[in-house]
């Protein structure tokens, strides 16, 4: 039995380049990037595929706008075999329950022979940390979260979770799902061969309609929660700056300032 992996990648705004107005982030022409935790999901999946032998396969899926094809091409360039884009006009009005339901359905149609799903632990924009666990529950799969690494041997996955109790080593049978944290390795770069392969690889686009989901079934109708409003966090007050040229004096005034701020 070999590994047929599906990795879920999300394109997010580069938060260091994000501008805001009163209602929230200004998303027009802000540079987009692959969600940082999804880089670890992708690298982990490529390593698992390499360890599972020739007939293993690695597909990547994203639900987003056409611009999300960028992260799919990047994934093919570093090692994915096939890539799928799901378009959903109601994405902005959807919560993680709606997204999970659509991703689970899309998965069945684009990667029907999957036996391992790999997610990031959290998306930088939503900060939900829910989608992987919800897709797993919808498909009645075991799931391991906060994973730092994973191995495939004799038909099952062994993964290490970073928890309050220490590093938990879990064994999971297939089919199953992993949600990755920062690992002790980074996503590999692509070489010319990979980039050429990516440019040649056709990326099918599947709409909700093709999945049999009508417009009014998606978005809020499929969501369990609703965001009422979004606002920018109030900036912190100006710092009290102490000159540290004379360390002894600086420490005395720092202690004084901490007392004044009722920290001590």
């Amino acid at each position, binding site marked *: 039995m070999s590994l047929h992996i599906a990795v879920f990648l999300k394109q997010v705004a580069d*938060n*260091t380049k*994000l501008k*805001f107005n009163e209602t929230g982030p200004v998303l027009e022409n802000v540079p987009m990037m692959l969600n*940082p935790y999804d880089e670890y999901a992708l690298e982990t999946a490529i390593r698992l595929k390499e360890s599972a032998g020739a007939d293993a396969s690695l597909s990547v899926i994203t639900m987003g706008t056409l611009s999300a094809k960028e992260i799919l091409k990047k994934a093919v360039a570093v090692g994915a075999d096939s890539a799928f884009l799901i378009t959903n006009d109601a994405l902005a009005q959807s919560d993680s*329950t709606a997204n*999970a339901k659509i991703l689970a359905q899309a998965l069945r149609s684009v990667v029907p022979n999957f036996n391992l799903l790999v997610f990031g632990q959290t998306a*930088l*924009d939503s*900060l*939900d*940390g*829910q*989608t992987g*666990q*919800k897709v797993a*529950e*919808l498909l009645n*799969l*075991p*799931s*391991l979260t906060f994973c730092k690494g994973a191995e495939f041997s004799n038909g099952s996955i062994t993964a290490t*979770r*970073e*928890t*309050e*109790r*220490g*590093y*938990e*080593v*879990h*064994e999971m*049978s297939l089919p199953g799902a992993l949600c990755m*944290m*920062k690992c002790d390795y980074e996503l590999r770069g692509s070489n010319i061969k990979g980039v050429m392969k990516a440019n040649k690889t056709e990326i099918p686009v599947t709409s909700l309609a093709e999945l049999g989901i009508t417009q009014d079934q998606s978005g809020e109708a499929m969501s*369990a*929660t*609703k*965001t*009422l*409003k*979004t606002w920018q*966090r109030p900036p912190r*007050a100006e*710092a*009290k*700056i*102490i*000159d*540290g040229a004379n*360390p002894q004096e600086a*420490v005395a005034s*720092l*202690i004084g*300032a*901490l007392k004044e*701020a*009722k920290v*001590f």
Partner: protein
Amino acid sequence: MAQGIWIIAELQNNALSSSTHELFTPARRLADKSSQALSAILVTGESDVSQAEAQLGHLGADQVITVRHDLLKTYQAQLFTIAIADLIKEKQPNIVLFAASTTGVDIAPRIAIRTEAGLVTQAIDLDLNEAGQLEVTRTRYAESLLSMVITPEARPQMATVKKKAFPAPVLDTSHNAPVEVVTPKLDAAMAKSSLKEIKQAEGSSKKKLEEADVIVSGGRGMKGPENFNLVEELAAALNGAVGASRAVVDAGWRPHSEQVGQTGKTVNPKLYVALGISGALQHLVGMSSSQTIVAINRDENAPIFKVADIGVVGDALEITPLLTQAIQEQHATVNV
């Protein structure tokens, strides 16, 4: 009609976790505001949890439900999910709160699907509107935005609550709650994964970052791993935990479990001291909601000074040991 407010309690080596204590502060406020009963749900494989049950009463629970089964002795997401989801379907609570611990984050989304509930994660504030909807305030876009999210119709309304978002209440040992013991219908075939072993992180006996009231973090400005004893000594003097920037984790000076920031831990302690940390956005997103931030950096234009409450422009290698000494001499303790 869905009724009652639940807290999913968590045991850590047979005692209630600190984040479980913290849940009672918002839960009691919601219960009083809507005059609903507050129940604490204890899910365990242990035979004697009487001490934890008593403590849940002292924390303010009106009722304790202990969900006990041998299969729950070691942690397994599907078994915990099924045990809690079945109890929710049977007793139909209105609101269910989990701590945003690794267990809460692991099972709450699964339980939300299984019970068709709404789930809002990483709550930093909770309130009830006149329509009885749980209004959850949470962060978005790498902590730079706040959102208010509700669960319009689905019930129960669930949330995971960020650690340290609320103080823990004082125990009232005169208040006790009746305990109902429930045996969930579980069988081993439901679990498609199993916990093999738990390895302790290096130096894991020390304080956990997300549960510390004081954190002293070091960055590349500490110049080398050998100078991190200065960070550890200041942390010890303040009874706090040691944190690190990603730069020093990637350089191999400190373990990833100490990393604060976007791909590390998000913390909100009473006091955060940043030593030789520039204050890159990816670091700031992990600590900018700390109550008081102190930064020591020799570059007066370091971005860390934009979020700091008190900054010292100087050499951290010289100032830190003197600060530690002054704190020890004055027996200064942080008000928590």
